[in-house]
């Protein structure tokens, strides 16, 4: 393995070792550098996001009027099916994998992923599967929804259904290979001085995500293989006419697809845990609680799948079990939410775009989580099952959670990926448009669902027209909101201001190398000088000097009781600069923030 890797590295070096020497053509090759693959992932999936957005806009356009006048009902079915599949399997899941690809080796101080070529394979499956899925429109796209329940999926658009199955199998394979890579990289490639509990929280989130992916995704593959046999060979696994049982498919499907929603949100839990302390200038609150609650969510996420099937004839005692376990998931999630709130509590907030999206994430995801508790309770779920309430809930957690997290990560790590800053003003415009458009689109859907408008229908009762028109207006706002972002990214990539190595004054390892990082990421093996979240206790050279001055001024200025933290002797650190400076140990200095002073005065 290493031999081939060295050969590959040598090939890259022949083209130039500096990322600045990279030609744009390098991003269209089977490159094995994890940074290139990460950017390939992100750009590709963002393209699919735009496609899925177009499909969503078409869906909302159709729903602006009660009659089916814009597209035929069959095409409408295809639109929402492909929209869901593209958004889930081709945008959110791979986008999380893309950020993980770019960040994990940098965060743990590795030179590359554990299996670079496997990594490239996992990426290149995605465009293939995406093109395959979209090509189904030529032969009649699938019409059974992204859940593809039999027997409906056995009788409608069979060819498109088979294409859908193949495409999802491809994407599942890609997902598994990526997860193997992340898990092995995190467990075996950390710098020698970094224990598991000194990792950035994003890596913990990716451990939990990978575990879920590895356990759950193959079960979907099993379900889809059996469904393929039903479609093509005339077997009757899920066909009631041949003693088959459609509910078995639902069990297998949801055994993957419930963990899938955690696969989609967990990386962005990690992203938010990274972003909030950096822009609050405070240590993260409850590091271990956040890290281990991810693992708890992983475990619980695997045992709650049947809460999607309360109305599928699930017996009462089983309903109770799944209702209770589902509600227990609120506990680790609540631990995370409150830890984040405690992190930004009393911090010196820098309201840059990444932070705005991070805080937007907390608010929208919280609302989505609360509606999740509502639909977890059986009586309420029976009332709103397959109505727009469910649509509202899932979009609150997937758009308001995952997509906001993706945007936050984009704004936060774009300087590291490209060496240039995004435009702050247009970032705020983008945030405002997204947040307002999102709320206008999905908040009214709760009411729509409570009143009983079913999902996946092209024609509805005219009494729902008003709210649907509001939702459609919001959808157009969301469509418009991506324009500033796209223009911003393209323009900043070329002409943006130079970012420098550490524009956010962060402490995790990925900021200790150049932007964009060189081929081998670090010169030699980086040595950890601080924990990942020791903000307000900086000892690191590049941010430490200025902060030391600030701290000294604070110490002089504050006449209150000194509750200082002695600064330990800093270790020599081998960073990008190639030099290391020992910071002289000081006497006790006061590390304070406005919150501390308030506590003192109380």
């Amino acid at each position, binding site marked *: 393995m290493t031999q081939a890797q060295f050969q590959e590295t040598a090939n890259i070096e022949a083209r130039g070792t500096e990322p600045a020497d990279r030609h744009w053509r390098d991003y269209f090759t089977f490159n094995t550098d994890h940074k290139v693959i990460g950017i390939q992932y992100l750009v590709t999936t963002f393209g699919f996001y735009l496609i899925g957005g177009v499909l969503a806009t078409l869906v909302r356009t159709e729903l602006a009027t009660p009659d089916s006048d814009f597209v035929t009902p069959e095409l409408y079915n295809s639109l929402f099916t492909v929209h869901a599949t593209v958004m889930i399997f081709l945008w959110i899941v791979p986008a999380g994998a893309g950020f993980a690809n770019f960040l994990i080796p940098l965060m743990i101080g590795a030179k590359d992923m554990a299996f670079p070529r496997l990594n490239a394979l996992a990426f290149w499956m995605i465009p293939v599967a995406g093109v395959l899925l979209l090509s189904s429109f030529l032969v009649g796209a699938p019409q059974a929804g992204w859940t593809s329940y039999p027997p409906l999926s056995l009788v409608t658009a069979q060819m498109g259904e088979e294409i859908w199955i193949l495409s999802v199998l491809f994407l599942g394979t890609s997902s598994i290979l990526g997860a193997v890579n992340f898990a092995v990289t995190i*467990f*075996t490639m950390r710098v020698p001085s970094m224990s598991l509990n000194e990792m950035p929280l994003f890596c913990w989130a990716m451990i939990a995500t990978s575990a879920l992916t590895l356990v759950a995704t193959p079960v979907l593959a099993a379900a889809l293989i059996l469904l393929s046999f039903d479609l093509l060979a005339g077997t009757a696994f899920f066909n009631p006419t041949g003693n088959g049982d459609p509910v078995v498919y639902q069990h297998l499907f949801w055994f993957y697809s419930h963990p899938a929603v955690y696969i989609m949100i967990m990386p962005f839990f990690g992203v938010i845990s990274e972003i909030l302390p950096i822009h609050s200038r405070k240590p993260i609150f409850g590091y271990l609680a956040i890290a281990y609650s991810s693992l708890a969510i992983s475990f619980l996420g695997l045992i709650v799948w049947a809460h999607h099937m309360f109305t599928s004839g699930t017996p009462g005692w089983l309903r109770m079990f799944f209702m209770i376990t589902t509600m227990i998931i609120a506990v680790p999630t609540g631990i995370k939410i409150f830890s984040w709130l405690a992190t930004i509590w009393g911090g010196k907030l820098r309201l840059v775009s990444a932070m705005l999206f991070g805080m937007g994430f907390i608010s929208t995801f919280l609302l989505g989580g609360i509606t999740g508790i509502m639909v977890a309770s059986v009586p309420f779920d029976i009332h709103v099952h397959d109505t727009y309430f469910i649509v509202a809930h899932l979009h609150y957690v997937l758009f308001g959670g995952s997509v906001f997290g993706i945007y936050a990560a984009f704004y936060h790590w774009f300087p590291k990926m490209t060496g240039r800053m995004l435009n702050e003003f247009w970032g705020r415009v983008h945030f405002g448009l997204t947040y307002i458009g999102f709320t206008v689109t999905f908040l009214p859907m709760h009411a729509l669902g409570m009143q009983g408008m079913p999902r996946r229908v092209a024609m509805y009762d005219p009494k729902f027209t008003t709210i649907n028109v509001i939702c459609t207006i919001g959808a157009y706002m969301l469509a418009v909101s991506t324009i500033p972002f796209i223009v911003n990214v393209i323009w900043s990539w070329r002409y943006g201001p130079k970012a420098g190595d550490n524009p956010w004054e962060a402490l995790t390892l990925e900021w200790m190398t150049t932007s964009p990082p060189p081929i081998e990421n670090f010169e030699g093996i980086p040595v950890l000088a601080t924990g990942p979240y020791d903000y307000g206790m900086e000892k690191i050279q590049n941010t430490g000097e200025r902060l030391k001055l600030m701290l000294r001024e604070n110490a002089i200025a504050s006449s209150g009781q000194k509750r200082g933290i002695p600064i330990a002797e800093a270790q020599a650190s081998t960073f990008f600069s190639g030099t290391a400076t020992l910071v002289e140990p000081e006497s006790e200095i006061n590390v304070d923030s406005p919150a501390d002073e308030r506590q003192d005065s109380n």
Partner: protein
Amino acid sequence: MQQIPAIDPAKTELNYHHSAEVEAHGEEHPDHRMLGILVFLGSEGMIFMGMFAAYLIYRAMAPMWPPEGTPDRELLLPGINTVILIASSFVIHNADTAIKKNDAAGMRNWLLVTIAMGAVFLFGQVYEYTHLEFGLTTNLYASCFYVLTAFHGLHVTFGVILMAGVVWRSRTEGHYSSEHHFGIEATEIYWHFVDVIWIVLFLLLYVL
């Protein structure tokens, strides 16, 4: 200010567990290649688990299993097949033992024996398919039987291809040695995995 020493070539390894620094640290990370194989095989096993779960649900719900009208299953041929596959697991372990003693020729011979056993197993499967009295769509049991055994047969085929690849690569003198034989270990682990899956499958589909 102090200058950082020049980069130690030993540290340019992709993984750090051979660098002097780690040895001084007294900490060794596990071999990432083996961990990757194990994690992947665990994931692969979940596909079979999903299918077994479906099979068990069908079995639990059916009033009679196998359903009415299924011909009795002949246990002799699959029994012989099972014995062959389990024995081949021990045979491939001999190949691993041989290469650990730097005996490439012995390793190759043991692998060839294992390939032959895998091929016999596959041939037995195909022979059984052609002589069974029920088809893929006869009833639910028949469908489960064919899909599960064929899916396992696919894995056996892949294992045979892996071993053939190892034999092909070992034709160069010194390609595998007592220090460098991960490909053989990985193949062995995969073959054990296929074997264990078959034991479960045999118990579920034939015996019970």
